[in-house]
Structure formats: C-alpha cells, structure tokens
C-alpha cells in the first residue's frame, strides 16, 4: 500500500477547520496555540458565524493570529485587545467579537482594560492563554509565572518576597502568581468564567465545549463577558521537549491554576 492509496477522500476521518487558512503556523512545535486556534476555528465554523465574527489579536506570540483565522481581524496594541473588542462590539452589537490574549497582555499591561471590560459586562468572548511566561520576547517573567519558576528575568526563580536572611525579610520582590480569572469572576459583569487546558485529547474536547458555550452565550445576547482561560505550555521557554512540558504543566501549573468552571450563568460555582 502506498501513500497515494491512503490519501483519498473516502479515507478522510478528520480535517482542519475551513476557517483556518493554509498559512503554516509560526508557533513552536508542541505549543498549545495551534490547538487552541483550531478549536476556536471549529467552533466558529460549527456555529456558522464566520460572516459576522471579528477577532482581536494581541501583542505576544499570537500577534499574527489574524494570518491563521479566515475571519475579519484587528491587531491590538499590547494589552488593549479588550478595549478594541469593546469598541467594535459597541458599534456593531450584532457581530460576534472575540479577543485572544496571552498572560502578559491580559494580566500585566492590559490588567486595567481586562478588569474594566469585565466590569462593564461587554457581551464579548475573551480567550486567555496562560502559559506563565512571556514567549515572544524570549521567556521573561509573566504575572502568572509560578513561585520558584525560572525565567529570563527571574533566573534564580520567581520570589514573591525577598529571601529570609538577606536583611530584607518580607520585602516584596516579584509578587505572587496573579489569579486574574478568579478576580474577574467576582465582578458582576462576567457571565461565564472557566479555566481549561489542551494538553491531552480529553481536555481539548472539554476546552472546545467551553469555548463553544462562550460564543453561544454571546450570540444569545446574554450580556456579560464570557471568559475562557486556557492553561497552556511554552516548551521553548520552559526549555523542555513538548511531552515533558505537558507533564510539567499537569504537575506544576494545574495545582496553582485548577481547571473547571468558576462561574456559570452569572453564578459562582460552589467548590
């Protein structure tokens, strides 16, 4: 049997979404962005909303997300994606607007926009990819970097406070991992808040279902932000191979950022 014998329409069991362009991803092999892009594209395709969807890409690794999605897109300044999403949704309330941001963009430089977009209850979908590090600029500390985690700007590991015995006991240093998702879930303007992951097929399916709900809520006109955090990896800057990075994610990221729905239909989920 040759390759030509196998690649036939009748043997097709899976294909990429029609809403992903044929441009090859610039993402590192093993990175979660590719999978997250795919499930977002599938959701938009399944919901049949591609002719009225407008995406907002951030500054960071996914800055050129607009090259990969076959829907209208705007590229925002660093941290301002949800201000852009607000601008579009307010003047085109019938369009479907989603923002796509990393941890530095959404939870550091864009914290103000994030909090206030959520507090206003804009009827948009926010996708937040949290891999605990700045990828595009080469692996510096992110607001979500774990305590003790080594990055280019915390080469000895992130310390919330300076170490004991240095004469500066208890003096703040790099601060604590920022739980922006739990924070915004407390705001009355958020409708649906969930934390998902894409490190194995079961979680990819769950994450896709969550993203679908986040888009459906918007289409159904339920006012309030629909917020999906996806805990992802950065094998390049974590300096691991993809398999090891996903194991590390499970062992280290998930205890700090536990998966599951945080708020559904405007109500905090009891734990």
């Amino acid at each position: 049997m040759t390759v030509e014998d196998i690649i036939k329409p009748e043997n097709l069991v899976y294909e990429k979404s029609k809403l992903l362009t044929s441009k090859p991803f610039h993402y590192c092999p093993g990175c979660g962005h590719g999978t997250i892009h795919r499930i977002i594209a599938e959701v938009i395709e399944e919901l049949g909303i591609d002719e009225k969807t407008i995406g907002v890409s951030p500054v960071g690794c996914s800055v050129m997300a607009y090259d990969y999605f076959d829907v209208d897109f705007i590229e925002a300044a660093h941290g301002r994606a949800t201000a852009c999403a607000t601008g579009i949704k307010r003047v085109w309330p019938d369009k479907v607007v989603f923002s796509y941001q990393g941890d530095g963009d959404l939870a550091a430089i864009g914290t103000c926009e994030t909090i206030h977009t959520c507090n206003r209850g804009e009827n948009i979908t926010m996708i937040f990819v949290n891999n605990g590090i700045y990828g595009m600029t080469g692996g510096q500390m992110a607001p979500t970097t774990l305590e003790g985690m080594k990055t280019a700007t915390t080469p000895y590991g992130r310390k919330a406070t300076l170490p004991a015995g240095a004469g500066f006991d208890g003096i703040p240093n790099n601060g604590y991992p920022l739980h922006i998702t739990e924070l915004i879930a407390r705001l009355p303007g958020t409708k649906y808040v969930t934390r998902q992951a894409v490190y194995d097929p079961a979680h990819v399916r769950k994450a896709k279902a969550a993203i679908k709900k986040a888009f459906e809520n918007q289409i159904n006109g339920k006012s309030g932000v629909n917020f999906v955090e996806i805990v992802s990896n950065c094998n390049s800057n974590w300096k691991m191979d993809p398999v090891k990075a996903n194991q590390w994610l499970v062992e280290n990221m998930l205890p700090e950022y536990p998966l599951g729905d945080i708020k559904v239909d405007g109500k905090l989920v009891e734990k």
Partner: protein
Amino acid sequence: MGELKLMKGNEALAESAIRYGCDAYFGYPITPQSEVIEYLSEQNPYERTGMVVLQAESELAAINMVYAAGAAGKRVMTSSSSPGVCLKQEGIAYIAGAEVPCVYADVVRGGPGLGTIQPSQADYFQAVKGGGNGDYKNIVLAPASVQEMADFVALGFDLAFKYRMAVCILSDGAIGQMMEKVVLPEQKPRMTEEEIKAKYPWALTGRKRGTQHRVITSLDLDSNKMEEHNRHLQAKYKMVEENEVRYEEINCEDADYVFVAYGSSARIAQKSVQLGREQGLKLGLLRPITLFPYPTKAIENLINHGVKGFLSVELSCGQMIEDVRLACNGRVKAEHFGRVGGIIHTPEEVLEAMKKQIIGE
C-alpha cells in the same frame, strides 16, 4: 440655514458630532474639555441618533476603542487635553500605521507634565510633528472660534475617511471654554450597514464567504513590505499636502509685516493688526487653519509680494515658528512671541513684540 445657539466650544464640538451622524464617542474626563463627554451624556445621543457614548477607564482604553471601532468602518471620535493626549499617542500611532479614520480633539492646556489647566498652544509639536512612534502625520485642524469647533467635526470626518487617517482638532482651553454664537448644522443620518459595506470595503464588518478576510494591523515583520507600506503612507501625506492646505489671510494684500498665528492666538493677533494699522503700520495676519498640511506656499507668496518679516504668535515658547522659518528659508526675518504657563498675551504686547522684534526702531 442651521440653528443659531450660544454655546461653549466644547459643547459645539459635541453637538455637531451628534448632528454629523457620528457613530460613537469614547472618552475620559480631563479639564478643560470634560464638557464634551458631559454634554454628550446629557444629550443621550443613543436616543437621538443611535450614537454610542462611553466613558472609558482611561485615555489609553478610549483611543483603542476608537482605533477598533474606526477599523470597523464607523465614524468615531474622542477628545482629551494635553496629558491625556500623551496617553493616546500609542493608539494614534497604531491608527496611523493601520490607516484607520478617526477624529480626535485636543483642547490644549499648559505643560509639561500635569502643567496647568489654563489655555496653551504648547502641544503643536506633539500634534503636528508626531507624538507617537514612527514616520507618520495626522491632519491637524486649528479652530479659532466656537463656530469652527462645530464646523471642523464634519470637515474632520470627511478628511479622515477620504485619506484613512486620524484628524486632530487642535484647540485650546480658551476656544473650548468660551461661549460664542454658533450656527449648528442640520441633523444628518448615521450611515447604514449596507452603506458602510459599499463605501468602505476595507472595514471590518465580517467577511463574506469566498472572499478574502480583512486584517487591520500596523505590523509587518517583512522589512521590504514595511518599507513599501511606509512609502505608501508618505505618498498619501504628500497628496494631503497638495490638496488640503487651508488658511485665512487678513489684511495681507498691502502688508509689510505679517503675524502668523492659529487658534486663540489668531484672534488676539487680529486685534493687533487693527491696532497697528491705526498707528499707520501695514500689518497683516496669516491664520493657518490646517497645521498639517502647513500653508508653506502662502508664506512664500507673501514674501514674493513684498512682506518683509513675520512674527509667529503662539501660546508656547516657540514651536510653530520652526515651520514659519522653514517657509521663509532665510529670505526674511521670522521671530516668535508668546506667553506661556496659561497666560494669554494681550493684543498690545503682541503689537509691541512685532515692533521690537521684527520692524525694529
């Protein structure tokens, strides 16, 4: 004939935005222009025309709302004053790079830093020469009356969409706060979705299946494409320079010496012309209405017709004087006079400065 009203400059700007059919205003309060968002909020334009008014969490957020809503084909505007406009520069550079039409008003106050809330023209450099990063220009309109605060909204939007670029209405605390009579334009309808789609094919309105999706971005990592894009922007600015220069000449026909002044300084210098003529001095006033594009040729023409010197009158330590001198190119004397820090020069001291610095003893 429109409606005659007595209004503040800031209110006239806001009212004419509603009447122009503006789709959205995103702003953040700052003295001396808070009347713009207050007036809009009080007027409830969403009820009148469907215009959106949103108080953003910061000037940064406001300009980025403008950037995206403008990219989506809508007529959107913001306004602020000097320190707030500093914050907006990020978004303005993106707007320039991504070629998004919008109007922003800067009701200038004294600086640097928090400065003062009193009138100033010390942000000429920021508005006219750049302010954000990269090689770009904004069209800058300088109203000298409450009437022009109203009129330049329509002119601003027309130019913004003609060239797909930001238009700055550069006024100051005096023009924004003073009350004058103003003839307001008739109410125009806002554009429909069909009209926007037909007129602005670049606008983000949701791509039709089978057509290329649209991208509004200022980014291109391919240096060759980025150079090409920059050349394209420069060619556009050249077109603006060739076609959109606006200015007013007062008593220049027989003038020996001419004041160059815009906005509130032009109002004062006009009085200085009158006082000087009463003393037998042949004085004139050149009032740039567009600061970019600058009326360079108008200055050259005045020199060709015998003007022997220019005094640039500005509420600054000397900014526009650089453009006056570039236009003079060393052929005649050009000097600057201006009070700063929120103090407004009197017609008498402006006339004295002309006598002392230009005409000589």
